């Protein structure tokens, strides 16, 4: 009992912060989503008006939602495949491998704003690295972030910059696969591809599942790149859900509306995550 109290005393600063800055706003936002609220004046109850407005009268809401889903559908699988493939390469027994692992991990610890600024230069239509290289082989690259057909794809490609963190989890998973499984597979005459297909991938499904869930949640919250690089443009092509929510809240002081948007997003992410969870019995194999 005594030791419990001491334990609670030690975590009390965090507990207080968590309650005040996370739990309270979380609960308050449910109420605010049914209000007209602009920070300055007290909230005024409007019932389901914010939700009604969102679903029936706001085409930009649907545009932002579609953009975000499109991004999630493209960036999450691409991130998983790339990170997994990289992890397979970085798992090879080659001299100096720790250096390669460090090199691939490093970009993921560069602050998002810094890497975003770098990509603005890399994707510059005239003097950027990518278009300069393309020009050398006779191709005039697109205007990337300034072209509504390419801006979203630029951000999807850019998302690969941060796969280092996922690579580490895949590497840890790969190290955890019992060698006996590979030995048995070799005895059965399995080649490298068969071993990957029938041993490595099934044994890695828990890690893939974890990264899939985290990737989906992260993709639905995409904000920084679009905020800094494109401001949602050109022509709303990179207007992400979180960015539109932010504009509604802080540019137009429409906190009630933004709260409603936040709850729609929360429910959507919950439903998608639950659906993915429901499928996991069919394809995730736990070694134990």
């Amino acid at each position, binding site marked *: 009992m005594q030791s419990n109290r001491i334990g609670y005393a030690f975590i009390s600063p965090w507990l207080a912060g968590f309650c005040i800055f996370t739990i309270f706003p979380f609960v308050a936002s449910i109420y605010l989503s049914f209000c*007209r609220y*602009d*920070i*300055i*004046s007290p909230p*005024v109850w*409007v019932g389901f*008006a914010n939700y009604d*407005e969102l679903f029936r*009268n*706001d085409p930009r809401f649907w545009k932002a939602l579609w953009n975000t889903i499109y991004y999630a559908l493209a960036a999450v699988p691409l991130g998983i495949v790339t990170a997994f493939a990289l992890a397979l390469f970085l798992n090879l027994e080659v001299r100096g491998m720790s250096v390669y692992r460090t090199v691939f991990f490093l970009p993921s610890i560069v602050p998002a704003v810094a890497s975003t600024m770098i990509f603005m230069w890399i994707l*510059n*239509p*005239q*003097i*950027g690295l990518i278009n300069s290289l393309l020009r050398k082989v006779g191709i005039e690259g697109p*205007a990337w972030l*300034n072209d*509504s057909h390419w801006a979203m794809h630029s951000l999807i490609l850019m998302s690969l910059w941060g796969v280092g963190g996922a690579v580490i989890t895949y590497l840890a998973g790969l190290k955890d696969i019992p060698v006996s499984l590979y030995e048995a597979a070799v005895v059965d005459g399995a080649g490298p591809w068969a071993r990957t297909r029938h041993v490595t991938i099934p044994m890695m499904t828990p890690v893939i599942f974890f990264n899939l869930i985290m990737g989906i949640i992260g993709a639905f919250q995409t904000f920084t790149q679009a905020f800094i690089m494109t401001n949602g*443009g*050109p*022509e*709303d092509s990179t207007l992400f859900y979180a960015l539109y929510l932010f*504009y509604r809240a*802080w*540019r*137009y*002081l429409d906190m009630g509306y933004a709260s409603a948007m936040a709850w729609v997003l929360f429910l959507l992410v919950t439903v998608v995550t639950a659906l993915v969870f429901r499928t996991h019995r069919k394809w995730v194999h736990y070694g134990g």
Partner: protein
Amino acid sequence: MADRRYTALRRAAIVLLNLLLVGTFILIFALPSPAQRAYPKRIPVRFWHMWSGEWKDVVDRIVQRFNDSQEKYEVVALSVPGGSADYKFLLSVAGGDPPDCMAQWNQVIPAWADEQMLVPLDSLMTPQEWQDFQATAYPVALKIGCYKGRLYGVTTGINIWACYYRPDHLRAAGLDPDKFPTDLDELWEWGQQLTRTDESGAITRMGFLPGWYSQYLPVFGGSLYDAQSGQVTINTPANLRALAWLAGKQKELGYEKVVRFQSMLNTGGFATQWPFISGQYSIALEGQWRVEQLAKFAPDLEYRTAPIPPPKGGKAHAGWSNGNFMIIPKGARQTQGAWEFIKFWSGVDKPERAAEFYTWGGWLPLSSKIAQAPVYQDYLRKYPQFQTFLDVLPSENIEVSPPVPFQVFLADMTGRADDFAMRGTKTPQQALEDLEREVAQEIAKRKRFGL
């Protein structure tokens, strides 16, 4: 024995840690505020602004002058990062502890005044002072500072845009710098003659790039706001004419060519990086602050200025304007002290004294009284290019963003419509029709929400 020693050590460690924790808290709260007070016995007036770098130095000098002139108040200035200044201000008002005054340049007056967040500054004047203010302030200063007939912001610097041009480029192209175009289409023709491309067709020098829609609306006689009815006006013939002209010229240049040209310019935001200095623009539409910057960073550059020429049937000395203005939030502890500072800086009470401050920042004054002050006249003699802006300043044809509570939304949507039309994704007519519908939806939504 060992157990007892371990327990004693553990207790000592816990006591020490607790003492350290309590000590840290005491130290944090007991430390003096980082903002040093030069006159601790005076009443502090907390002033927020968003300037940094060379501009912050100018603001600090003005604050210093005010404090030197005072015995009662001390202005304590705080430079707030521009990107988050509005949020900080809103939260400070909501939290009941706002600054006493703030220098702003964002489009905040209609929305904030509508929320009853700002002190009407005319309430701090006598009826005679308010009358004098309205009679002497430039029309654009009143447009920037007023909302529904009340004054919420006093300008300390107005921005006017005009053409900067390089006579060396003009001469080389066989154009006479002394006969700058007085018609917008003629200016466009000049721009075409001045533009240079490389062998691949990429633009290497832009003769003249018109700019953004809001700036040209008044030039074509259009406007997004009807002051008589207090209504937003979007899809009007004059507004359409302006957008169609801009979209047409953009098409002639080639949208992608312009994007590629602009993307290779060194536009890091520093005064020295302005492409006009490096000769990548021959004629550029820019604000009056460039005069001061060119004097500082490119003193040997030969350049001249001229008002934006109107098209046939358009308006002379027209354009869009904004400015720096001072506001006092409701809940400010030192409203009177803040008002004294605003009067001091803006020149509401002593125009001759304030004239000097305007010259420090290369700012356009609040009233003609300030412009006529000897020190301001000296400034004009020193920088004759500045005269163009002062000539345009009294014009009734200078427009500001519509004074409606959803001004930021309107500005965002207008910029979006402009972008659609420039890219050619929508025809100018379609872009304006869509904009009109979007704004009508927002107005209807506000009505449904009782706003």
